[in-house]
């Protein structure tokens, strides 16, 4: 007997249908875009403010991390998706960041007076 074609994933009967899109609304997407642009403008502005020089690097890193997080959570939908996906990406990102920082340390990138 030949039966209609479906993936073997159909064996998982409770999960065989695609989940309905559970994403942010268009309004949220636009708000995120506005925030991303505003933060980018802020990043551009702060480098010209002499008073911020002592905290410039951490400030820029925080602003950049904020933009990064917004895109990942809303545009890449991790906020709405299955937790294991966050683990897949977050774990890899953490290891990559750790190794990058260790690599820079070991190659002298953080030496104030050079090598």
């Amino acid at each position, binding site marked *: *007997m*030949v*039966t*209609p*074609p*479906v*993936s*073997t*994933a*159909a*064996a*998982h*009967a409770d*999960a065989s*249908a*695609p*989940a309905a*899109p559970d*994403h*942010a609304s*268009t309004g949220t*997407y*636009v708000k995120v*875009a506005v925030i*991303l*642009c505003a933060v*980018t403008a802020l*990043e*551009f502005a702060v*480098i010209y403010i002499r008073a911020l020089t002592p905290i*410039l*690097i951490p400030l*820029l*890193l925080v602003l*950049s991390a904020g*933009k*990064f997080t917004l*895109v*990942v959570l*809303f*545009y*890449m*939908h991790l906020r709405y998706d*299955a937790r*294991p*996906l966050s683990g*897949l*990406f977050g774990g*890899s*990102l953490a*290891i*990559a*960041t750790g*190794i*990058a920082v260790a*690599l820079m340390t*070991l*190659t002298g*990138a953080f030496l104030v007076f*050079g090598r």
Partner: protein
Amino acid sequence: MSATRDVALFREDAVHAHAPAATGVWSWITTVDHKRIGILYGVTAVAFFLVGGVEALLIRLQLAVPDNALVSAPTYNALFTMHGTTMIFLAVMPLNAALFNYMVPLMIGARDVAFPRLNALSYWILLAGGIFLNSSFLVGAPPDGGWFGYTSLTLRQYSPGLNIDFWLLSLQILGASSLMAAVNFIVTIIDMRAPGMTLMRMPVFAWMTLVVQFLIVLAFPAITVGLIFLMFDRFFGTHFYDVAAGGDLTLWQHLFWIFGHPEVYILILPAFGIVSEVLPTFARKPLFGAPVVVYSGVLIGFFGFGVWAHHMFAAGMGPVADAAFAISTMLIAIPTGVKIFNWLATLWGGSIRFTTALHFAVGLVAMFTIGGLSGIMHASPPVDLQQTDTYFVVAHLHYVLIGGSLFGLLAATFYWWPKMTGRLLDERLGKLAFWTLILGFNLAFFPQHYLGAVGMPRRIYTYAPETGWGTWNFASTVGAVGIGVAVLLVLVNALRSLRAAPTAPADPWDGRTLEWRTSSPPPPHDFDSIPPVYGRDSFWREKHGDRHGRRPPPIPPLVEPHGIHLPAPSYWPVVIAVGLFVAAVGALSHVLLVIAGGVIVLAAAVAFALEHHREPTHEHQIGNLAVDRRKIAMWTFLGSECMFFGTLIATYLAYRGRSVTGPYPHEILNIPVTTLSTFDLLMSSLLMVLALAAVQRGDHRQTRLWLLGTVVFGLIFLGFQAYEFTHFVHEGLTLQQNLFGSSFFVLTGFHGGHVTLGVFWLFTLWVLEMRGRLAPRDAIKVEVAGLYWHFVDIVWIVIFTVVYLIP
């Protein structure tokens, strides 16, 4: 039990009126069956193993007596380079891949891997890379810079021929193959386990396979970046490893060992998984502390990323770095020791059957322990300084990789051969091979501890009689011949078995895991019905009950209302691999061939991607996670990309202040213009999510609009980048000008390459939409492309900050 064919069996090729191709060469070329691909991996790996073995024997024959002139010094360099590279990338890794392919889907109760065509592509690319590497012999330019390829030995100045070019290009090709396979197996294991098989019920071999795939995904990008730098230094005159221009030779060592040490676990953890299956089966006892064995494997994998610099104690990193890596290296001995004690406890009190597979598994425990103990010696920097670059290290690594990986692979061969072939191997011949191997192996490598301790350096092609090294070198050579004899005995055993009639039952060892529940060899669809899972060692429980003999109540077979779906064969994986091969040949001969190869790859990749577009069987690929598998695969790949760009960015930051000549970053970077291009890319991400929302609700007009908008914004970004690059060149900053130019152009250039690929991908989707072939059920394709596009965006967010804004 034997498989029956009275199942509702459906083939895609029936729908497409393709003739089923079950036999003949073409069926093997186009196969996407995980079992056949496993066999292809196995046969290919054995062939390369023999090549690597002959190289090893030549090395040992050359060293058998002092002042020997069997081979010249350059030939000797090529022999040890090709031996190491071949054994690691073309023998042990593919042999492991053969077992992953054949066994893991069976062990987890799946009908195939998540992406069968991608699986075929991984194999064919591996074959292309292997042939390309070994074709270097044909043109008289075999790689000769060691399997570690240390700069500056491998720079054009010191290796002007094609030798190193062959090596670095083939390693890039092999890396692509490994990465594809790793993503595939991660998705398979996470998402395609039979109902009831929770992660902690999964066989330990499947667990170790999963850990290894994560290691590949995260470790290979580091060597990819290192090889890209080497390639740019050799082909385009950049300065990544040019000390005179401010470059750092230890950068290569770091990048290589960030990959190289996890690679040790990539090679050995599958063997640990094999032992964890073989010992319980032949001790007729559950694996002692199975969850702890699993956790130990995971910990070994995790710690594996934090120990790489113990390979560099002699490089002069300083006491703090030495101490940190010494501690982390000693820590990794703990989970390894836990495994060894758990295996011993598994055997303790067991009803042991002394099969050949058990011999090899116990041999692994003993031999690997010796290798592990000498490894702990290397963890101590003062001791390591004495042992570095001596034969002591050669002895250590061979106790780990032969005593560990090879013994494990031979245990697996004798254990799973009946499942793969339907035939048993000769146990007497097998045990003869085991004893020959263990004697030969110890005779070959144990004396090397002594030779190293008395000062015999590695990689010397001969030595003077006055050194007194002759006796033990001769003994070592005799031992190596013994290893060769043992390998021949295994091959003879295998060939004799293949010529005999298939008589192996489905479950010859009274096995514990699901692969023994189907026929030997399994049918194309693996199982007539998805097997029930009663717990860890599910099949054992089904047959024998728990320790009180109580059998679980039978679970009725899972109803698959739509029958069984088997993927159709495809020839596109072979075409893509041929394209890559042509491009690699072109890189060493003529740029037109590079272009031709690139066109073949691109065209075949598009055909590959669209081969099953809109086919109902491919619409919903959803399993354990209730998330489409393509999305899981993309997130896994993006994790790998994090490592790739993380390494590129770290290198840029390490090098940005080291140029010995201008222009310097603050003199040339145009922040206002780059801010505009950043706005542009951020807005493209907004258009991308709007396009996804439109396709999900079936709004074709808006789908076209937003997809095209994203493409246009991507093109504008590329225009900004082209303007910036052109401007910089006019200002005197080129790839070759200084270290800043090298690291800046490579980092932003690779990001631009990713943007270009994303634009092409989105344009393809837009064309599909224009032709009316993008419906709401295809939204996953837009979503996966969107994930890639947003990732390119977040990478740029980081680049914009660390390259342009931070002073």
